[in-house]
């Protein structure tokens, strides 16, 4: 790497499964916008190298066969990921990555088919909730973050007790909203319960989100840089 990152020598791993797509985008974005060389980790590895943070990228691991993220959850690398999370490691699961984390049980709930029954690709606004207080620094004056979603199985579901626990523990990170951060059914693209777009684990260090922060790093391309703010905040919290 030519440039020295402002994050110093932070070691960030990037999981790759057969069918992962957004790993290439993550590699590219972290290199060009954050001066970080992500460490690619193939799913058949038995152990993670020494890491400060771990990314599970988006895509269609195993073609979303059986259920999105279900087959990836059984990869050889999975026990090592569990250990890393248990030891307080920082993990971010984006889109398919979020699905894999729920299938692995590292995050509660599950992602189901969108309410419309169709794949949806569009820009959404996110209200930053109690579980992502770190990220509220990234909020623009409008009170929401803007970034794209692109998924067919993004409807977050958890039973009533689970939802109460999530709320009680302050684990909801992001909710779909309008540009002012206001919540409504109209601004919920996929029918997620409580408009949930992202959650964190009980220790707050594992974040799963359906929207793609790596696609909102350049106003020319993503229409906003809010994604870059999220990624930077994630890296800061990992150090």
């Amino acid at each position, binding site marked *: 790497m030519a440039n020295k990152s402002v994050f110093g020598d932070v070691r960030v791993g990037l999981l790759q499964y057969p069918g992962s797509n957004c790993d290439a985008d993550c590699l590219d974005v972290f290199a060009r916008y954050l001066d970080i060389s992500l460490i690619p980790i193939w799913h058949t590895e038995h152990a993670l190298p020494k890491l400060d943070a771990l990314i599970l990228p988006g895509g269609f691991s195993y073609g979303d066969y*059986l*259920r999105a993220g*279900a087959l990836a959850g*059984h990869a050889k690398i999975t026990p090592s990921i569990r250990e890393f999370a248990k030891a307080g490691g920082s993990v971010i699961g984006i889109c398919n990555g979020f699905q894999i984390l*729920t*299938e692995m049980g590292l995050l*509660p*709930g*599950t992602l*189901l*088919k*969108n*309410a*419309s*029954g169709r794949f949806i690709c569009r820009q959404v606004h996110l209200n930053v909730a109690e579980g992502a207080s770190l990220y509220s620094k990234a909020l623009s004056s409008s009170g929401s973050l803007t970034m794209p979603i692109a998924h067919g199985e993004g*409807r977050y*579901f*958890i*039973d009533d007790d*689970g939802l109460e626990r999530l709320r009680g523990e302050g684990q909801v990170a992001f909710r779909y909203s309008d540009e002012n951060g206001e919540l409504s059914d109209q601004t919920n693209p996929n*029918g997620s319960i409580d408009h949930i777009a992202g959650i964190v684990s009980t220790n707050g260090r594992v974040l799963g989100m359906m929207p793609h922060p790596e696609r909102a790093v350049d106003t020319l391309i993503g229409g906003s840089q809010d994604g870059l703010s999220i990624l930077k905040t994630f890296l800061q919290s990992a150090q």
Partner: protein
Amino acid sequence: MQLEVVVSLKPEVLDTEGRAIQSTMHRLGFESLESVSVSKRFILEFDEADELAFQKAEKLAKEHLSNPVSETYLVRKLS
């Protein structure tokens, strides 16, 4: 030995596919069709000699073929 596993959404989970099918069929003239629910059916073929096939099918159903957060399952032997 052939075993059948049927995985369905829990009743409290919205079945968007079932709902979409019901409303389309309703429009096509099936006016008395009140609801449709969609399930997945797996047919598992085990070696005839495996006496523990049924238990294995249950384990597969419980731990892999269904997601306990949102789905239930049924296992039965096919003749």
